C-alpha cells in the first residue's frame, strides 16, 4: 500500500493535489476576511455536491435534475429530528442519510427499469412533490414560514460563529467525496458504471447488472447529497421549502461537474473553483450598477464552455496535453479493460 502511495505522490497529479490540500488547510490562518472565507466555503460546498451528483450523473450517465430533493430531505430530516426530539445534528445527519437513501432507492428503482428520459423527469417531479408536501404539512414542518435553527454554538451543535470550522468541515466533506469518486473511478463498480453509460445493452450482455449498479450509484449519490443539505442548513441556520427544494440547486449541482468534466473525480472540484467565484464576483461587481447583467455574462460564459469544451475543463486539459496514458479520457473504456470485465 505504501509503494503505490509513494509513486502517486511523485506524480504531478499527486503532489499538486497534496499541495492544494495543505494550502486550503492553512488558508483560514492566513486570510481572515469572512467574505473570502465564505466564498471558499461555497466553492468547496459546490465541489462536494457536484461530486455527489457526478456519481450518478457523470459516472453512470443518468441525468438527474432533482438532487435538491435529496438535499432537502437530508436537511429537513435532521432539523425536524432536532426540533422535535432534540436529536444531535450530527446523529441527525446520519439518520437523514438513511432516510434519503431509502427515498433514492424508492424513486430510482422503477425509473431505472425504463429507457429514455424518465429518470430525469421523475427526479424533477420528485423534488417538486416533496416541496409541496413540506408546504402542505405545515403543522409538522412549519410550511413555507421555514424553520430558524436556534443559534446554540459549538462543535456538538454543528453551529459556529466563525467561518473557519465550517471551512474545515466542508473541506473534509469535499475531500471525502473526492476520495469516494476516485476509488469508484478505479474500481470494478466504476467500470460497470462507465460501461452502462456508454452502451447499456452491451454492458448487460457482458454480465453487468445494470439496474443494480445504477441503483447503487443513485443511493450513494443521494446519501452524500443529504450531508450537503445538513451542512447548508447548519451554515445558513434557516431552512424553508422554496429554497431547499429549488430547481436552482439541482441545476447548479449538475452544472459544476458538467463544466469541470463529467465522470471524473477531479472534474467537479475544478468546475466549482471556476463557476462559484465567477458567479459571486460577477454579481458583486455588476449587480449594483447594472442589474441583471451578471446573469447575461454568466449565461454567455456557460454557453461558450459547452460549445468549445464539451468534455468540460478537465477534458480540454487532457485532450490538449495528453501525455500518452492508456486511458485517454473519461469517456470510453479501452478494449483490454473491457475484456477483463467480461
Amino acid at each position, binding site marked *: 500500500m505504501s509503494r503505490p502511495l509513494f509513486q502517486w505522490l511523485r506524480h504531478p497529479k499527486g503532489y499538486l493535489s497534496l499541495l492544494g490540500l495543505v494550502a486550503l488547510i492553512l488558508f483560514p490562518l492566513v486570510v481572515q*476576511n469572512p467574505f473570502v472565507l465564505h466564498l471558499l466555503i461555497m466553492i468547496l460546498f459546490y465541489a462536494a455536491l457536484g461530486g455527489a451528483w457526478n456519481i450518478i450523473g457523470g459516472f453512470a450517465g443518468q441525468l438527474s435534475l432533482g438532487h435538491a430533493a435529496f438535499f432537502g430531505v437530508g436537511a429537513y430530516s435532521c432539523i425536524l429530528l432536532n426540533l422535535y426530539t432534540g436529536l444531535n445534528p450530527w446523529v441527525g445527519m446520519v439518520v437523514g442519510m438513511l432516510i434519503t437513501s431509502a427515498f433514492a432507492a424508492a424513486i430510482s428503482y422503477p425509473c431505472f427499469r425504463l429507457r429514455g428520459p424518465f429518470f430525469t423527469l421523475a427526479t424533477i417531479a420528485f423534488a417538486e412533490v416533496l416541496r409541496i408536501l413540506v408546504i402542505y404539512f405545515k403543522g409538522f414542518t412549519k410550511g413555507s414560514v421555514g424553520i*430558524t435553527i436556534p443559534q446554540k454554538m459549538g462543535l456538538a451543535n454543528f453551529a459556529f460563529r466563525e467561518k473557519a470550522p465550517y471551512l474545515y468541515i466542508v473541506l473534509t466533506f469535499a475531500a471525502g467525496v473526492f476520495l469516494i469518486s476516485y476509488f469508484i473511478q478505479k474500481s470494478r463498480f466504476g467500470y460497470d458504471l462507465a460501461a452502462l453509460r456508454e452502451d447499456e445493452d452491451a454492458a448487460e450482455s457482458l454480465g453487468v447488472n445494470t439496474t443494480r449498479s445504477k441503483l447503487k450509484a443513485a443511493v450513494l449519490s443521494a446519501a452524500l447529497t443529504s450531508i450537503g443539505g445538513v451542512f447548508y442548513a447548519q451554515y445558513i441556520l434557516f431552512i*424553508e421549502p422554496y429554497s431547499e427544494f429549488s430547481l436552482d440547486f439541482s441545476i447548479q449541482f449538475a452544472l459544476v461537474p458538467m463544466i469541470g468534466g463529467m465522470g471524473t473525480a477531479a472534474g467537479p472540484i475544478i468546475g466549482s473553483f*471556476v463557476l462559484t467565484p465567477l458567479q459571486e464576483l460577477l454579481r458583486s461587481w455588476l449587480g449594483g450598477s447594472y442589474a441583471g447583467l451578471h446573469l447575461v455574462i454568466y449565461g454567455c460564459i456557460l454557453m461558450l464552455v459547452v460549445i468549445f469544451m464539451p468534455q468540460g475543463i478537465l477534458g480540454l486539459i487532457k485532450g490538449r496535453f495528453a501525455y500518452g496514458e492508456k486511458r485517454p479520457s473519461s469517456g470510453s473504456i479501452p478494449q483490454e479493460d473491457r475484456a477483463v470485465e467480461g
Partner: protein
Amino acid sequence: MKRNLFVPCLLIFCLSLIFLSAIPALAEDVIRIGTLYPMSGPLALLGNEEWRGAEVARVAQNEKGGVLGKKIEFVKADAPDAKAATAEAERLITVEKVKVIVGSYSSSIAYASTAVAEKYKVVCFEMGGIADALTQRGFNYLFRISPLASDFGIMDVELCEKKICPALKLKPQDTKVAVIYEDTLYGTSVGTSAVKTAKARGFRVVAEEPYNAKAVDLSSLVMKLKSAQPDILMATSYANDAILFWRQARELNLNVKAMIGNGGGHGLKDTADALGNDINYILNVDITQPRNVNEKFCPGVKEFARRYEKLFGYPPRSGHSLRAYMGVRVLWDVIKRAKSMDPEAIRKAAMETDIPEGTTPTGWGVKFAPPGHPNQGTDLRAKPVVMQWFNQEQYTVWPAEAAVKEMVLPLPTWEERAKGK
C-alpha cells in the same frame, strides 16, 4: 509539463479575482450605507422600486447637506435570494465596511441578511420584510419600519367589523368569511393571521385555502368557495395568481359581498391593467400609497411623488418606494441624534425614537419595541390602510382621516357589473 501548469494558473486567476474584490473602495469624507435589495431575478421589480424610495431619501438629504456634515453614499448589493443575501451582507460588512444596511423587500432575504448583520453588530433598517418572525429572534441591531404580516390580517377583520358588517347589516357570528392565500411565507403569514383573528372575534370562517401562486388553473379553488358561499372573501396573492383567480371567479360566477386583498397583486397597477373594470370595488389592505391619499394624514407624500418623478421620469409605481423613503428618513434622524456612525450609538438613538402618528409621509409614527418585547425592534406605530379600486385606480377609503373617497359596499354581482353599474 505544460499540462500541469493549466490548473494552477486557473486557480491563481480565480484567487486573484477574489483578492481584488476584497480591496475596499474607501472614501473618508462620505457616510457609506449599504443597500441590499433583489435587483435581478423574479423579485427585481418591487425590490428595485423599494431601492428607489431609499435613493429619493438619500438625494433629498444630500441636497440639505447630508448628515453629520458629510454627504451620504449608497453601496448597492444585489441579493436575488437568501443564499445571495448571506454572501452580499457578508461582503457589505467585511469588505465595504458599512455600519448600516438598508433592505430588503422580501422576508426570506431579510431573514438571511439580518442574521449576518447581527453577528457583526451592524445596524439593519428593514422596510420590506413583513413576516412577524423576522423580529422575533431577539436581534439587537435590527429595526423594522412596516406593518407586520399579522397587522394585515387584523386589519382585514377590523375592516369587516367596523365597516363591512354594518353596511351589510350582518352580525359577526352570522358573517361567513373565506380566506385564501398563496402558500409562500408572505401569503401564509397574512392568511393565518386573518383566520386566527376572525375566529377570535366570532366570525364564521367557512374556508381556509392555501394555493400555489404558480398554479395555471384555480377553478377548483373557485368551486370550493362557491359551495362554501362566503359573504366576505379575504385574499393574499401575488400578481399573476390574483389575475387568474379573479378571471376564473368571473367565468364561474362566484359572487361575494366584499372582497379584501392584502397588498401584493391586489395593489398593483399591472393587475388593474390585466383585469380592466373587473378590479373595481375590490378592497385592498395595504401600506400607504403615494397617490389618492389625504395629505393631512401623511404630510410629505406629495413632495415624495414629485421628487421621485424628477429623479426617475415617471410617478412612483407602488407604495413600496414610499415606505422605504419614509424609513430611510427616520434613519437620517437617528444618525443625527446618534452623532456618530458607531452602531452602538445608532442603536441607542434608534431606541429613543418617538415620532407621533400622522407626521410622516406614510402617516405612521415610529416607536421601536424595546428589548424583551416579543417583536423587539419593530415599529409599533405602523398600521396598514384600506384602499378601494374605482375606475382601475386605487383610492384610500379608510381610516377616515386618510380617506379621499367613500367606501362602496356591497361588491356588485357580475351581472350588475355587466349592466355597467
